[in-house]
């Protein structure tokens, strides 16, 4: 068993590094200091951390104003509240306004498992992906999380970083370089392509190992940038394998699967399966239990890939 990491640690460390190098960087939170793991940032830069209290609309508006005043605000709060409660501010004050603000949605997806669907954030990719000008990134491991933070700090414009608190292994080699808008091919294979994002990338890699035992070579593609999507990588995956399975810890409506399907059907149509939460509110259970419940496991991904290949063969 490889070592597991909480990506929030890499997020917080990278943000402190970035803030040391760029005095314009500030943090805005909604009483989310602990859940964002930003106590170290507060100790290092007490003046540069603005806590607006439990007020997400104001939090995003304040960030837009700080950006107007020349700052680079990183807004960090639980993803369900940040994205849903403040969606109009995200659209108007940040994206439409091209404000230099970085949204960091913590504990996204099913990470708040037992707390229930009020606290699940399985719609945030659909909401944010629909908005023009907004770059949407879902890092898969600590290395990629840190690099995404630095890229967001370096590049101008509004970003949404979707950060999980679910433990994940390092899926990239130490010399990996995150490139905005570019997918990373973690495994080659010509029978089926598994396109995954965030915490599902490690599980897709495990699924590919299982499929190899079945004699099926699966490509594994980490789609860390959801918008702008790497269309060339999607087309390449369709062309090489002729079958695509997308995997996300998100509703199947409007997330990674939808984004990939939009490219596939209009460029190089191949059969697909879209794995995620099937358009329901999740029952009670731990994050691990819920992933199992929805088949978002190596075995579940393997089963979906096998079913897809069987259905294609029968056509």
């Amino acid at each position, binding site marked *: 068993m490889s070592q597991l990491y909480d990506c929030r640690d890499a997020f917080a460390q990278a943000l402190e590094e970035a803030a040391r190098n760029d005095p314009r960087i500030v943090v805005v939170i909604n009483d989310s200091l602990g859940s964002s793991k930003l106590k170290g940032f507060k100790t290092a830069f007490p003046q540069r951390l603005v806590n607006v209290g439990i007020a997400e609309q*104001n939090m995003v*508006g304040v960030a837009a104003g700080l950006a107007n005043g020349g700052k680079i605000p990183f807004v960090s709060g639980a993803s369900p509240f940040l994205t849903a409660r403040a969606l109009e501010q995200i659209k108007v004050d940040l994206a439409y306004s091209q404000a230099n603000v970085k949204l960091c949605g913590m504990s996204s997806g099913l990470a708040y498992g037992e707390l229930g669907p009020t606290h699940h954030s399985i719609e945030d990719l659909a909401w944010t992906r629909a908005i023009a000008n907004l770059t949407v990134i879902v890092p898969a491991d600590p290395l990629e999380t840190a690099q995404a933070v630095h890229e967001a700090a370096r590049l101008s414009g509004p970003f949404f970083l979707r950060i999980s608190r679910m433990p994940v292994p390092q899926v990239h080699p130490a010399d990996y370089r995150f490139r905005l808008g570019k997918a990373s091919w973690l495994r080659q294979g010509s029978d089926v392509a598994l396109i995954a994002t965030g915490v599902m990338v490690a599980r897709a890699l495990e699924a590919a190992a299982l499929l190899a035992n079945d004699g099926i070579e699966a490509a594994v593609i980490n789609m860390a940038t959801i918008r702008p999507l790497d269309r060339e990588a999607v087309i390449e995956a369709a062309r090489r394998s002729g079958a695509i399975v997308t995997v996300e810890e998100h509703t199947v409506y409007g997330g990674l699967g939808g984004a990939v399907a939009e490219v596939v059907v209009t460029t190089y149509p191949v059969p697909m399966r879209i794995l995620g939460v099937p358009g329901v509110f999740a029952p009670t259970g731990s994050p691990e239990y819920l992933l199992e419940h929805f088949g978002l496991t190596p075995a579940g991904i393997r089963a979906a890939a096998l079913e897809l290949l069987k259905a294609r063969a029968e056509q």
Partner: protein
Amino acid sequence: MTQDREDQLAALRRKANLLRQRDLVMIQRAGMGHIGGDFSALDILVTLYFAVLRVDPQHPDAPDRDRFILSKGHCAGALYNTIAEVGFFPTSELETFMKPLSRLNGHPDRTKVPGVEASTGPLGHGLPIGVGAALAARLDGAAWRTYVLTGDGELQEGSNWEAAMAAAHYGLDNLTVIIDRNRLQQGAPTEDTIRLEPLADKWRAFGWAVREVDGHDYAALLEMLQSESWEPGRPRCLIAYTHKGQGVSFMCDNVDWHHRVPTPEEAERALQELREAVYG
């Protein structure tokens, strides 16, 4: 009052009268607009842009400029007329208002129009942005100030009160909110829709320094807005009592003129009234 002050007040009144005429023609031409709210806000805008704000149309992005945020974005017409007159863009461009591909949208777009600090339209967005701007100035120890103009009906949006709490908590005395208290919202008086009063008490309870003023009285507006400090450590709230449709008798205080477009005959009558108005 000194002669200089009298002259300044007369010049501001003439300026506002001119801008009301232009706004009327602009809305008439576009066949759309929010003339009632434009006219209630115009004296405030003219006071700010011609006597208070430190802005330079040659350098619209100067870091140390004062920030003015129009939270009631539907009154873009009043803002466009004002900042065009200041020199941020040619007044001839006002003819494109709401025409295809014009940068003069029905609501202001900061990415396209020089001098526009915030893209607004949905209500309740301006004050949070203003709080952020004021915090940025505070962090830098900079002297520039932030002004936000809100409508009154717009204060029914909860985001304003989130921002009001934060501004007081952070002691942002470099932030001024001006409330265009024309007492009418889209379809009815505010007090018949969702009551705002006692409005001054609410802002005081939230920790703000509050002043009340006739929003068409230039001497009073200048006295309030040119004063650097009201109460140290408190953000400033100026409740400006105004009249929707101010300047035109048949529009004044008439809820119908929220976004009605004058007929050619009404426009001519309105222009006639404005031309005949004797100021200073």
